[in-house]
């Protein structure tokens, strides 16, 4: 990789860089917001509409973009807020490792790492859902627990997926605090020492830490998945922390049992249980804390199908909150918390907006219809500074870690988001599926049929336009937009092809020891 800039820090460490120096100046953010509003006003009121349907679609898209930008700026306005932490506060903790058929070696690593946590008093539980999930290795999990001398709770009656698994465990564990790790998230020894101190504030309900993918450079999928995570666990979560609106991310988190029980336990009705549970917890007046330090390392989905399922689950769960929870009229949430939840959930509406935007040039090529009366250079005059500023704010607030690949993956997931939206609106039933921890090899190009269709339609549209109108400036402009859209899709399409593995370099390889201790089996 060639990074010629002399000013680049040579100490680039993916594990920490996205968490540092995320505070963009208030001047930059203010200018960004002002320019975005000016652009919106200009495009809405000062350019004459041409085709009113397309104009309407454009304005819907621009309104959504304005909402996204303004809510993002509000989110990252302060990414440096600090919470009270008392390191001597060290109550007993239960460590819950959720398991549902993951390879036994992965679970072993996590369990051993949990045992190695440096903390006075804690109990480890493997929450074994392998039996109810009909996984072959559920018995092996129990044997592993025995081997490692830790607890195992195996459920026999399925209910509520991962949330149900945790709720079931909460009935059987006694500590006032509990930690949740996914089976593939290996905690650092200092995990509890770095997190428990925040519970000195009796109103803190949970402490969330980043979800870091140590296999981020394994292949195109893991890389794309990580590029999206960086922005979220960097500036966004740090900003949400200052608004007391960080939400749980399902793993690498510590929770106060009392708060969770008061909120009705982990929410079992939503496939993004952590998101909705956070909302209920916040609405009961509890606080949340985000610790911007990688204290556990996990695995990104390693193949395109797993990534697809993971994104679908997140999208569906988030969209359900918009359509099925009365977010705006929730009396327990502050205004800023409502805004934060809405901003996070509405991100998954971007798929339909992206589809609308990218359809416009193709519609023009086939029909000669466009949303605005052609005043291309005037639009460019406003659009270029606007998009430049927005991208720069993204770059700056991610400490210059946000890349085109992250953007491409986010935007190209449009079909996943649309499918999730349809599923929510039509009340389709989708089971909770665990993100695969091992790579499923194969060609998943069929999942990207909309992208392929777009490329083909685009080429066809260009040829049709040349045939019926010849080459002119409108053709060039619309072709360039299509090229941009295709360029955005390319990394996503590439990731869906049979994957080429890169040289895997994990940041923090750990050595694991087998510890011969007694175990206690608990079977539900």
């Amino acid at each position, binding site marked *: 990789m060639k*990074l010629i800039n*002399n000013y680049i820090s040579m100490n680039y460490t993916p594990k920490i860089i996205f968490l540092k120096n995320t505070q963009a100046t208030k001047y930059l953010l203010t200018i960004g917001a002002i320019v975005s509003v000016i652009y919106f006003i200009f495009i809405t009121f000062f350019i004459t509409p041409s085709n009113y349907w397309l104009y309407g679609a454009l304005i819907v898209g621009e309104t959504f973009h304005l909402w996204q930008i303004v809510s993002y700026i509000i989110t990252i306005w302060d990414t440096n807020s600090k919470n009270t932490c008392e390191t001597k506060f060290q109550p007993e903790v239960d460590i819950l490792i959720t398991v549902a058929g993951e390879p036994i070696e992965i679970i072993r690593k996590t369990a051993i790492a949990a045992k190695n946590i440096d903390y006075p008093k804690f109990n480890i539980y493997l929450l074994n859902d392998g039996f109810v999930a009909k996984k072959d290795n559920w018995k092996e999990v129990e044997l592993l627990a025995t081997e490692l001398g830790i607890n195992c709770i195996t459920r026999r009656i399925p209910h509520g997926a991962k949330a149900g698994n945790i709720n079931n465990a909460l009935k059987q564990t006694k500590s006032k605090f509990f930690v949740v790790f996914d089976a593939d998230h290996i905690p650092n020894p200092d995990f509890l020492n770095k997190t428990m101190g925040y519970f000195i504030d009796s109103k803190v309900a949970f402490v969330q830490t980043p979800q870091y993918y140590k296999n981020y450079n394994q292949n195109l999928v893991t890389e794309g998945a990580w590029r999206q995570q960086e922005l979220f666990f960097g500036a966004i979560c740090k900003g949400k922390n200052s608004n007391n609106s960080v939400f749980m991310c399902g793993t690498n988190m510590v929770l106060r049992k009392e708060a969770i029980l008061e909120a009705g336990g982990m929410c079992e009705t939503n496939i993004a249980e952590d998101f909705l549970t956070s909302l209920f917890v916040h609405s009961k007046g509890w606080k949340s804390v985000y610790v911007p330090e990688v204290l556990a390392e996990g695995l990104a989905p390693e193949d395109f199908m797993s990534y697809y399922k993971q994104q679908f689950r997140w999208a569906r769960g988030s969209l359900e909150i918009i359509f099925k929870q009365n977010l705006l009229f929730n009396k327990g949430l502050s205004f800023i918390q409502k805004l934060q939840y809405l901003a996070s959930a509405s991100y998954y509406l971007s798929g339909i907006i992206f589809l609308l935007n990218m359809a416009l040039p193709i519609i023009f090529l086939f029909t000669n219809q466009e949303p605005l009366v052609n005043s291309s250079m005037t639009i460019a005059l406003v659009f270029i500074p606007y998009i430049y500023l927005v991208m720069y704010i993204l770059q700056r607030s991610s400490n210059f870690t946000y890349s085109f690949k992250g953007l491409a993956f986010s935007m190209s997931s449009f079909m996943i988001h649309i499918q999730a939206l349809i599923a929510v609106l039509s009340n389709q039933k989708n089971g909770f599926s665990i993100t695969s921890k091992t790579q499923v090899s194969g060609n998943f190009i069929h999942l990207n049929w909309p992208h392929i269709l777009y490329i083909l339609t685009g080429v066809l549209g260009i040829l049709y336009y040349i045939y019926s109108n010849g080459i002119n400036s409108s053709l060039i402009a619309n072709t360039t937009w299509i090229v941009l859209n295709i360029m955005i899709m390319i990394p996503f399409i590439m990731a869906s092809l049979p994957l080429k593995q890169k040289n895997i370099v994990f940041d923090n390889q750990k050595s694991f020891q087998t510890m011969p201790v007694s175990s206690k089996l608990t079977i539900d």
Partner: protein
Amino acid sequence: MIKYNIKFSSSSNLWDINSVIVIIFATLISLAISVSIIYLNSIRLDEAQSIWQVSHSVSEILDIVGRDVHVPLYHIILHFWQAIFDNSIISARYLSLFISIISIPFVYILSSKIYNKQIGLMTTIIFILSPFINWYANEARMYSLLLLLAVLNSIFFIDILRKNKRISWIGFIATAILGIYTHYFYWLFLLSNALFYLINYRQFPRELFQKFSIVGIILILSISPWIYYVVNLGSAANTKPILKSPSSVDLFNTFSQYIFGFQPDLINSIILAAWPVVVIIIFTSLQRKLKYSIFTTFVAIHILIPIGLVFILSYLRPMFLSRYLIISALFFYLYIVYIINTYFRKQSLILYIGLIFSIGLALFLQITSPYTPAKENFEDLSLYLTTKATARDTIVLSAPFIIYPFEYYYQGITSVETFPIWDRSKVVSIPNFDSSQIEGQVNKIKDGHQYMYVILAYDQGYEKEFKNYLDKNFEKISEREFSPDLTLYQYKIN
């Protein structure tokens, strides 16, 4: 020992053997291209005015240039240059070429100091091939001198920020004073330097603020005698085309011209229509750890401030011309190369090849195409009329100031008039157009002549009305376009 909070790229050892070879080779290419262009193109309006202006004594030059809303350094240099060589347009163009060739190594030094040698070399290659730079490297005007002085001044400015040595200050002040006597727009360049410094002043030693303030005072004192002189002249000569307020198209045309030079309308409209390419560049330039260095701010300010400021101010008084903003062109190339260099090796190689190919093609088209809009083929027009028009005919030029380039070539015996009628021996300024006087002035011109050859160029707002009058009252015999916006009409008037 001064401590800096910012990092500077290493400026030592800029000249290795590879760089020297590339620069020399590129300079030779530039020389070959330029020399061929010098002889190829007809004199243009601005050049004709330069030649006419410098043909006077120094004191007269000061008077003429002062009224022409310019500053006199270039004209005085050209005056003595022509005294040494000859007073032809070719010799005047060689002065610009000479200055432009001198600029090449300094462009390399500046861009290498700002970033690194690789970016320096690529920027220099783009600079050499640029149709825009080539155009003004071969024009008998002050723009190549303006660019050279800006490049030198920037080098001294960066050296001041880095080393704060006396020699850098001397160079900085000298080039700044020469610059403000080369073109008024040099002040915009200095303003950009000042703005860059003020934005980042905390990162530099405090003593620099004092010194820059003193330099500012020196510059104001240096230009004061000229300002006093111009104010005392009382009035502008009004011998230039009237400019219109710029539109967004003009703004983007400027950037398009920086890269692709002057292209026919069809090609230009296609280039402008591809503006979403900028969005592609913005998106794809999202690179991990691509931090904007302090000197990227320096580059960006030198692009955005002059262009933005002139664009806005032009709504008060139109003055938006890409050539006035030639300094920003260099920084624009530097920025493009910087962005391309941030891509991965293969991608940047493809982009470089694409860019160089596009610029090379644009240069070729600009040189060879008769439809290049900036071309003014007064030479063929004058030669045509020299053979075609007789003593019984009359030639009418509108706008009146195109008489300068026409006269340069015209050797015929036909009487030459302007519309509106302008007696240069009596009044310096061109008379304003008055539609009620069309009939009277045309009658005055046509008296005793058989054919009227009307040359229309540089529409000053009355061209259409004038032509409509002629079409309505006389029989049009022929029409011929010699270059874009330079058309000859023949009317039978008696």
